């Protein structure tokens, strides 16, 4: 089965509605997997607001800023457990401030860069997770079969409303959780996939889809991010199986611990 450590595949595809309207894909993803043996990984995904003109730039900036913060912590051997609510919230604030700077530089209202932001840092002892907006982080613990959303996607009263990291009172919606224990697999995705993989009535994450995408990742021979499998994941997300059910952008990161425990 190869050496232990995190294996990751990720994909980002533009929704058919964006292709038709000529809008750019407004999702962004940033991730790092520990180089020597995949002992930890950090990831962030962001989804730009549909009508915000520059939200593709906003989401890119936000995902990179928070993920860089997390990976620097990880590289400095600071465990996930050390990142409490205040520390991660501060990183979100910094990401929002960077977007505000970008908006000021480009002389645009900050709402044009509005985006959601989901982040994760998982090591051998546990995982720290954070979220503003919709989309979800779904995890499976070692030895368990159940997948569960760490947070439920933040939706407003209406289907086309959520929270963003910029705007008035934006970070009021900030959620943080540290999950102790050995995490076996993580899936992070933007709202384009929500309706296909979360049971909204029961508020659960039924295992079939997540097992389906995690199994090939788990079987990767080596730890780290795999380009070939990521390409196949993107092809799947662009296929009719998926595109018949959603016309939105989709970003999906699948991480699975593999090899001997």
């Amino acid at each position: 089965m190869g050496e232990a450590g995190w294996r990751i595949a990720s994909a980002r595809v533009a929704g058919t509605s964006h292709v038709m309207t000529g809008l750019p894909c407004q999702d962004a993803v940033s991730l790092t997997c520990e180089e020597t043996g995949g002992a930890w990984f950090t990831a962030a995904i962001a989804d730009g607001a549909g009508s915000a003109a520059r939200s593709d730039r906003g989401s890119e900036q936000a995902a990179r800023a928070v993920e860089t913060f997390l990976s620097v912590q990880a590289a400095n051997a600071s465990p996930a457990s050390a990142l409490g609510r205040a520390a991660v919230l501060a990183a979100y604030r910094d990401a929002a401030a960077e977007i505000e700077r970008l908006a000021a530089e480009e002389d645009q209202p900050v709402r044009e860069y509005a985006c959601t932001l989901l982040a994760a840092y998982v090591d051998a002892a546990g995982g720290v997770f954070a979220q503003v907006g919709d989309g979800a982080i779904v995890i499976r613990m070692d030895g368990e079969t159940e997948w569960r959303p760490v947070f439920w996607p933040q939706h407003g009263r209406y289907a086309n409303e959520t929270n963003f990291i910029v705007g008035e009172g934006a970070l009021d919606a900030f959620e943080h959780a540290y999950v102790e224990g050995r995490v076996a697999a993580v899936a992070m995705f933007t709202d384009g996939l929500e309706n296909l993989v979360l049971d909204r009535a029961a508020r659960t994450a039924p295992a079939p889809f997540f097992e389906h995408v995690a199994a090939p990742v788990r079987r990767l021979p080596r730890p780290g991010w795999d380009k070939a499998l990521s390409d196949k994941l993107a092809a799947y997300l662009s296929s009719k199986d998926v595109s018949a059910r959603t016309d939105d952008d989709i970003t999906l990161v699948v991480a699975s611990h593999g090899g001997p425990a």
Partner: protein
Amino acid sequence: MSDDFEQVPFGGQPFVDNPEPRCPCLLLIDVSQSMRGRPIAEVNAGLKAFKADLNADSLAAKRVEVAMLTFGPVRVRQHFETADEFEPPRLDTEEDTPLGQAIIDGLDMLETRKELYKQNGIAYYRPWVFLITDGSPTDGELWKRAAALVREGEGSKAFSFFAVGVQGANMKILNAISERGALPLEGLMFRELFAWLSSSLKSVSHSRVGETVSLAKPDWTSV
């Protein structure tokens, strides 16, 4: 592990069957005596085209839910149904214009529908209420209560309310009811009106999170 599996690791549809998010649209249509003749014929033609337009868009057909009340007397002609199930009834003119009661009953129906969505975990878009009339209310001061409900609903973003005045409508009262201002219908452009309505509902039902839906400028009103 087979080679085939290596080549196509992902595939199939291991998905959850969530109900589509709904985009409710309530039509309140005046069928008083004065609508007799061409006006009601144009409304009927407009409704048919409305259904066809919505159904030409597979997502809108599953997401837009239409309900219809006519007045007067106030009658529920159609409970909320997705566009693919919506069968526009042929409307005939009847008697008077109990506009106040129609709004009150209609908003009540809408509230019940929203409750049902919530109970079943169905996501929904901000509902639309569309009032079309060519007269003055004949149910006394009830329209004032209706106007208060509309104000409250618009204020809390519980719905968007549009009042369309056909020639002869009491625009003063319609303006008092509709926060955003009543829209006078040019001539008998009901078809244009319903075409605009279906295309707007299509935009709403396709809108994504954080999107401010920009509606086409109506071509059926002089405002």
